């Protein structure tokens, strides 16, 4: 049981990495990027291409892929998201949905239906583990993902609170009109925020390729996991995203213990339960009081 809980917690690290970009983008620009998973898969393919065709190991490949992802993020915001956001809140959702279809099909056309993995290019890291007393195994990659999640979230938190650009991002997120009146270029700030988001998406894509196989249409499930972790943790909250990822990972691990098909169902059930409790504010005061007594929102609140 302890093993199951530990694996669930560590799996939450991966979900936190993939969800933090989604959450960050929502908190700053109020855009739900439905192409999030597809972009992560595209990054994984980029790393695979560098490793398989040019012999560049995935960790070194990140030095190429992450700047490219940042540039894609900048261009995405300037030429697609910014324009679509002018048409209201629904249009960016439709736009990113369309973008995900385009990315998925381009990847399919380029790489076909075969599944790929980055595991062969990272030695034994994908399956290596430490054995702890009590026959408990801790995967090295899983620990690396959790540490990376904490570093990304902590780094983002530090950046948002200590740097002028971070403060500008928070100000733009809170009130873009007034941000302009104090001298902040909201367009530039949003483009930077999207670039940062895409860097986290690139890292998530790398972990996706290292811990499992992926194919052209793997973006949908990744988006779903990211969305569930972000909602469970409270959309827009950075540390909440880590908590959401851990809760999702735990629910999936426990679900898998109960039934062979329970892995995904466990996660979805937890997501629906959290959603039910959150929406109960409008109709179930007892649950609302319970939630308020835990002060969860205050505890998970981030600068964004």
């Amino acid at each position, binding site marked *: 049981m302890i093993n199951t809980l530990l694996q669930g917690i560590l799996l939450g690290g991966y979900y936190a990495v993939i969800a933090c970009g989604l959450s960050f983008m929502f908190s700053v620009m109020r855009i739900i990027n439905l192409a999030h998973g597809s972009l992560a898969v595209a990054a994984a393919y980029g790393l695979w291409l560098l490793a398989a065709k040019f012999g560049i190991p995935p960790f070194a490949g990140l030095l190429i892929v992450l700047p490219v992802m940042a540039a894609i993020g900048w261009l995405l915001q300037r030429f697609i998201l910014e324009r679509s956001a002018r048409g209201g809140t629904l249009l960016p959702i439709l736009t990113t949905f369309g973008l995900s279809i385009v990315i998925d099909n381009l990847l399919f056309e380029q790489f076909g239906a075969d599944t790929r993995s980055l595991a062969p290019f990272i030695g034994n890291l994908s399956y290596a583990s430490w054995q702890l007393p009590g026959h408990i195994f801790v995967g090295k990659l899983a620990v690396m993902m959790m540490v990376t999640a904490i570093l990304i979230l902590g780094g983002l938190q530090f950046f948002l609170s200590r740097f*002028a650009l971070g*403060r*500008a991002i*928070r*100000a733009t997120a*809170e*009130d873009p*009109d*007034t*941000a*302009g*009146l*104090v*001298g*902040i*270029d*909201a367009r530039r700030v949003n483009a930077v925020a999207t670039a940062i988001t895409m860097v986290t998406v690139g890292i998530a894509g790398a972990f996706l390729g290292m811990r499992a196989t992926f194919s052209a249409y793997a973006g949908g499930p990744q988006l779903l996991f990211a969305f569930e972790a972000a909602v469970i943790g409270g959309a827009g909250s950075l540390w909440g995203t880590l908590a959401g990822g851990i809760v999702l990972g735990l629910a999936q691990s426990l679900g898998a213990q109960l039934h062979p098909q329970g892995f995904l169902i466990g996660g979805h059930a937890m997501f629906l339960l959290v959603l039910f409790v959150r929406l109960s504010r409008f109709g179930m005061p007892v649950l609302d009081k319970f939630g308020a007594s835990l002060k969860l929102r205050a505890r998970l609140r981030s*600068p964004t």
Partner: protein
Amino acid sequence: MSLLSIRDLDVSHGLLQAVRGVSFDLAKGEVLALVGANGAGKTTLLRSIAGAHLPSSGRVLLNDEDLAAVPSHKRIAKGIALVPEGRRLFSQMTVEENLLLGKSSGRKGEWSIDRVLDAFPNLKPRRHAKTGHLSGGEQQATAIGRALMSNPDILLLDEVSLGLSPLVVDRVYAQLQALLTSGTTIVLVEQDLARAMSVASRVICMLEGRIVLDRPAAAVTREHVTQAYFGLHRAAGERSAS
């Protein structure tokens, strides 16, 4: 040469024209009180100068440079800072963070966090408090301090007394007094006629989007302004013409 020139400015909110053919010049060091009833177009005029509203026609010139194509975030770099109506602070951020945001334009000058805190001593103990938790007077002081941090050539103050108790307004104006006498060019939108006239060197009164009175403060009485404020001068003119 005028520091700021407004020429035939028209500004609309959809079908509603809020500012109609407004023209005036502002010299360096002037303190202009912009008065008028609710809906007279004062706030819209101020926001147009700051670049938050685009005019439908007319020009805003700063040192003879047309600002038509200059967005709001670049106008502050050129020296125009607005303290918006209702303060519009970033409530999730601290006083210090709000003040630091005022430096976003990158303009160099004498204003720093320490100087703002010296000018508004009530903010000193609240430096690390989130602005959403401040009193109205502290919020107003933070909003003014944030604008000053950009070292503006022209400070636009929109309804600094709005929503504050008379006692707090006295305190805010007392803190503003040093600023008002330091030679900073200020456009002050104020509902309180007596207070506006006591600090201004010039008074402009707006009615239904137009300027109906523009005189040095020393040359107008409160009665003049009141008549212009309510459009009584126009009614009297129409009566005498008939």
